[in-house]
């Protein structure tokens, strides 16, 4: 027998010489089973079901409620309580009354998000300085207790206006969500400071109603099948999903023979997929081109005089509101009768960079090819004078009489909606004061000094600055708000905001600024119903697929417990769970809104419901068909190309009564351009939904974070494709890889928005988080975000 095979020899001699077995000291340590470590493996509770049944894969239909304009169907394949893969809607395309709601690259990644190792798993409290990122794990009991006592303490000390639920969109298109849960708790305990408006179409939301009386100026997408000419002005639905099936309709419109023009500083994926022609333009100068198109249309008599006479106020001197001089009319402005400047294509070319001949051609085509749809994206209204862009588009739609007609489009903000469900989770805030959402940092710093001129409504003065912030599933606390360096400094001062609660699924830049940090759930882990932005005739069932992982909790349950601590649980929940809310919504929608709506079980089984209509919804059709009976919701009852209300504000330079080009601060004509020669814009990237998913590796592979720059600009700076560059202005500085490409207009740089602010030791962002470069100066009228108005310089890093 060989030595090797002899057990005794092995154990008694050979082993004893082995180094590790020389150690014998720890014998007798009382361990796992005995005491110190908790025993985590327990006796297996054998389930009665046969082995074969255990392996069965169950498909559960659900949906995300993030701030994407679409809602896609996510099918979770669940085996033994684990999501093993996701798939999407299998509905075939072709029938446009039930378009497939298929996930894009972002939706395909959801399993990776769910089972990402970086998920926030346990409640935490801050232990270092605020923003430093040091936290200590705490129990839920402690988290709830702290929130309850701070809500009360701050409310008692400063009053309800000191408490604020920040703009947050990570869970925004469902029935409940953290933001609403926090608001309800605050509403039940005295109230909170409201905000108005949003960061998406903020300037437009305030401006468009001055023209049309409403933001609902859009038409349903099926109306586009009748369009012969479509202008997508700064709209990029290939990356920024306005509604899941929108592209399906655009593609069909194109097949039907519509000519599609894309106007954008970048040659976008939309331009590639849909456009017959791409018109590059300098940011902030869209209204110069619009003015010139108007000039061409009226000087060549292509305008619809009858339409303008009947429906519009302020086109020419004969249709002005009382007490306003004739030369203040739109026509007079375009012809330069007052300022001596004719808004010719040659004038515009010098400003916006689009050749005069091209402006003429587009103006003629748009006016002659009817019906035509001028559809505006919202990027160009996230500008210093974004209000002008929104009203300017509407102005062109009116000049050509494309409003209220099948295949036309009224332009402006462009919401449309005809399908709705009931939202049973509600609250009433006893506080009436509200601020524009973009000015929340101002309300932290000097809220008590704000007035109506800052957009304060519902009160003359605020009694207090903001002292307590709930930031639920949102990144506006740091990352998505303008001027990150200014915001971080503000929040680091713990004497200003005294208490910040953040709930999220990952450690975002905003989450770092929490005092109490809560682990939220993904949509897989809760019940809901998902709706698209206002554009779409469908809703998607959000089934709970698995129980919440780790110690994650749905915010509804969190705030129900906080309410319990304060003796208000019954008032908060009204005895309902989130599943009850979903059931109630379905039942009441059937009863109150749509008799055809499926039952809860049917809806759950189908995963989706399409509302069906016999004909397209046409924006303002009622008004155009019968203005007497259906006046526009404006003061005059007409479309106000000239708004007397704006005129009376008496700030004509920045808030004109007609839409017009206003040279922008940090625009191409700003003298600051000598120091910072490049205009910087951002865009909604196909790999993220705003800042959601920035930490997802698959998506970074699909589209990496990089800045676009034209070869001409790169060459001047000795920059090559793939170089790492520094982008800076007086507000901040970031480092990013550069893509040198003719797909962006010379003089313009573009950084995809939403990358997570990742400062190095010196505070220089290393990820390309665009808001270190953007400004908190609000737009003139709406007090909204001008985050695409920036001048910067770029150099090799």
């Amino acid at each position, binding site marked *: 027998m060989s030595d*090797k095979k002899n057990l005794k020899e092995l154990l008694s001699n050979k082993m004893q010489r082995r180094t590790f077995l*020389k150690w014998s000291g720890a014998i007798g340590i009382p361990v796992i089973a005995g005491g110190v470590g908790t025993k985590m*493996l327990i006796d297996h509770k054998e389930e009665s079901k046969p082995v074969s049944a255990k392996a069965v894969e169950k498909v559960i239909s659900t949906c995300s409620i993030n701030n994407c304009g679409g809602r896609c169907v996510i099918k979770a394949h669940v085996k033994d309580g684990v999501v093993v893969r996701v798939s999407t809607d299998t509905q075939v395309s072709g029938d446009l009354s039930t378009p497939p709601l298929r996930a894009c690259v972002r939706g395909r990644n959801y399993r990776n998000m769910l089972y990402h190792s970086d998920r926030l798993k346990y409640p935490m409290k801050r232990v270092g300085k605020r923003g430093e990122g040091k936290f200590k794990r705490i129990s839920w009991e402690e988290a709830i207790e702290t929130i309850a006592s701070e809500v009360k303490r701050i409310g008692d000390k400063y009053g309800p206006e000191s408490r604020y639920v920040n703009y947050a969109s990570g869970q925004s298109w469902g029935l409940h969500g953290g933001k609403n849960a926090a608001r309800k708790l605050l509403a039940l305990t005295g109230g909170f400071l409201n905000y108005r408006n949003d960061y998406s179409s903020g300037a437009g939301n305030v401006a468009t109603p001055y023209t049309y009386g409403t933001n609902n100026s859009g038409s349903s997408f099926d109306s586009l099948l009748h369009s012969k000419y479509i202008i997508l002005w700064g709209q990029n639905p290939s990356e920024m999903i306005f509604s899941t099936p929108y592209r399906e309709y655009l593609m069909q419109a194109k097949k039907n023979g519509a000519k599609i023009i894309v106007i954008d500083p970048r040659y976008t994926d939309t331009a590639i997929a849909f456009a017959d022609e791409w018109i590059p333009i300098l940011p902030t100068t869209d209204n110069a081109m619009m003015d010139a198109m108007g000039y061409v249309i009226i000087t060549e008599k292509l305008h619809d005089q009858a339409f303008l006479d009947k429906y519009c106020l302020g086109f020419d001197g004969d249709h002005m509101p009382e007490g306003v001089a004739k030369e203040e009319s739109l026509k007079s402005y375009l012809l330069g009768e007052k300022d001596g400047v004719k808004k010719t294509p040659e004038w515009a070319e010098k400003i916006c960079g689009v050749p005069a001949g091209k402006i003429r051609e587009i103006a003629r085509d748009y006016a002659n090819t009817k019906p035509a749809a001028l559809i505006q994206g919202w990027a160009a209204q996230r500008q210093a004078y974004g209000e002008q862009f929104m009203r300017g588009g509407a102005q062109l739609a009116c000049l050509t009489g494309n409003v209220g007609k099948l295949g036309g489009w009224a332009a402006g903000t462009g919401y449309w909606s005809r399908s709705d469900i009931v939202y049973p989770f509600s609250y009433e805030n006893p506080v009436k004061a509200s601020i524009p959402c973009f000015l929340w940092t101002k309300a932290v710093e000097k809220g008590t000094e704000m007035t109506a001129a800052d957009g304060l409504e519902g009160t003359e003065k605020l009694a207090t600055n903001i002292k307590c912030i709930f930031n639920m599933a949102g990144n506006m606390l740091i990352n998505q708000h303008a001027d990150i360096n200014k915001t971080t400094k503000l929040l680091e001062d713990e004497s200003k905001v005294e208490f910040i609660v953040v709930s999220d699924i990952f450690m975002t830049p905003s989450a770092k600024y929490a005092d109490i940090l809560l682990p939220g759930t993904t949509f897989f882990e809760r019940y809901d119903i998902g709706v698209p932005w206002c554009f779409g005739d469908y809703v998607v069932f959000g089934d709970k697929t698995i129980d919440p992982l780790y110690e994650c909790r749905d915010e509804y349950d969190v705030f129900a417990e906080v309410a319990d601590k304060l003796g208000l649980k019954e008032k908060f929940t009204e005895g309902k769970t989130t599943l009850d809310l979903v059931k109630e919504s379905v039942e009441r929608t059937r009863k109150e809104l749509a008799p055809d709506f499926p039952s809860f079980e049917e809806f759950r089984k189908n995963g989706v419901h399409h509302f069906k209509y016999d004909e397209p919804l046409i924006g303002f059709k009622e008004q155009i068909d019968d203005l007497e009976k259906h006046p526009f919701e404006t003061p005059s009852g007409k479309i106000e190309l000239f708004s007397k209300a704006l005129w009376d504000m008496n700030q004509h330079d920045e808030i004109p009564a007609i839409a017009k080009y206003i040279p922008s601060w940090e625009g191409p004509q700003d003298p600051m351009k000598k120091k910072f020669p490049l205009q910087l814009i951002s865009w909604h990237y196909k790999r993220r939904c705003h800042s959601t998913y920035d930490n997802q590796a698959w998506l970074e592979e699909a589209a990496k974070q990089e800045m676009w720059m034209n070869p001409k600009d790169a060459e001047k700076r000795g920059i090559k494709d793939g170089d790492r560059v520094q982008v800076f202005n007086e507000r901040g500085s970031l480092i990013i890889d550069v893509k040198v490409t003719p797909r962006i207009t010379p003089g313009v740089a573009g950084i995809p928005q939403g990358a997570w602010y990742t400062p190095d030791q010196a505070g220089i962002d290393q990820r390309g988080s665009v808001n270190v470069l953007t400004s908190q100066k609000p737009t003139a009228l709406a007090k909204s975000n001008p985050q695409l108005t920036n001048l910067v310089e770029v150099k090799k890093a």
Partner: protein
Amino acid sequence: MNSTSKPLHIQLQSFLLARKNYYELLHLLFLVPTNDEFLLIIRNYGNLQELEEIHEGGRILRNFFDHLTDEQIQREYEEFHRLFVGPGPLVAPPWESYYRSREHLLFEEWTYQIREQYHHFGLQFKNENNEPDDHLLFELEFMVRLVDLCLQETRTEEIVALISSQIHFLEKHLTIWVPYFCKRIIEHTSSQLYLGAAMLLEDLLSFDLTTLLEVREALSSVRQEESERAIIK
């Protein structure tokens, strides 16, 4: 023919106990260092001066435990969270499936495989489907449980089977992913506790596997002898 030797399970006992102690020590080293009680147990009963002589990780640990202070424990607590808990991106996620899946996800097929192993031995992770089953601590605890089963067993055949299960668990799981896990710790920590623990963990697992393979081979010859004797009788 040596027919007077002690019963097999008695012969194996000190070897098995030594292994159990190692796994329990490793388990203690990777517990959250909130409570200094068990750190003191390691210091007082861990016989670290012996460990120091036989392994570099042991030397580092000895040095660490010799200078254990409250402030030090607080720092280790923070480091533990930075490495293994969060919040935020983890330096060394302590789950097998993170290292084995192409996308570095949790709850991947390896989590299932581990779960099946637990179930096979009548065990179950307490928070099944709430947290992944393949956390380092649970896999180490499982090894302790298997060694315990071995210690209670007297039948040669069963002992061989249990040793095979441990070999399988080491070969197919622990020794595959733990080196990557340890590498991350070693490269990214300045903590002497976790540096020493990671070095010890990695080497001990591969040592245990090698040794178990040899023991199994030796046992198979013992079994052969036994069956030969049975035939002669």
